[in-house]
């Protein structure tokens, strides 16, 4: 199971749109393969800082910051595909 955590702040319309698209990409792999969690950066600031998140939105996979900004669908698909291989 690959753990995907998307860090963003509530009320960010741009993030919401992109997140929905990326979540769809993750779900293509099957819900049993990907654990998707949306993290409110304001509520979990310490955790975000622990992972080295320097700007919002960002994506961590399996507890490591992988995308410092939201990736394209293709990039996320490639990253997750590589981890599930």
């Amino acid at each position: 199971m690959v753990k995907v955590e998307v860090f963003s702040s509530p009320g960010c319309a741009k993030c919401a749109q992109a997140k929905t698209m990326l979540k769809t990409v993750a779900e293509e792999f099957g819900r049993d393969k990907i654990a998707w969690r949306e993290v409110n950066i304001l509520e979990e600031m310490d955790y975000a800082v622990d992972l080295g998140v320097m700007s919002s939105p960002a994506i961590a996979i399996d507890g490591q910051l992988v995308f410092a900004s939201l990736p394209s669908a293709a990039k996320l698909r490639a990253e997750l595909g590589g981890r599930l291989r």
Partner: protein
Amino acid sequence: MYTIGKLARQADVTADALRYYEKEGLLAPARKTDAGYRLYDEDAVRRLRFIRQAQRCGFSLGEIGEILALRRSDAACCKDVRGVAMDKKLQLEHKIRALQVMSRALTELVSICTDETGPLDECPILAALETSIATQVKGAANG
């Protein structure tokens, strides 16, 4: 209208700072007198207040310039400014974390010094700093 000295006093900055803000494109006088003295209007007062407040929130002059540009841009909206503020907050949180690490290191150094009257060449703080420098140099050589 305000002269540079009057505006500077009102905002508790120096006249040099105002000239520097002008050079950085952040704050321009409304006009200059025939003798070349800068004169500022109420807009400049508001703008200067904005700059000072943003500095207090940790923004650099470069970043303040970006925010002011966003304010002028028709394409930008509040979410762009919010994004800049969010990223600045994250940077500050990282900085706070780094400062806490430094503070803890100092606590350790202070706690190993139990005799304030000892000679300087037996100072455990200096010795600890020397050791950590030596360890770092050794680490760098091995790495």
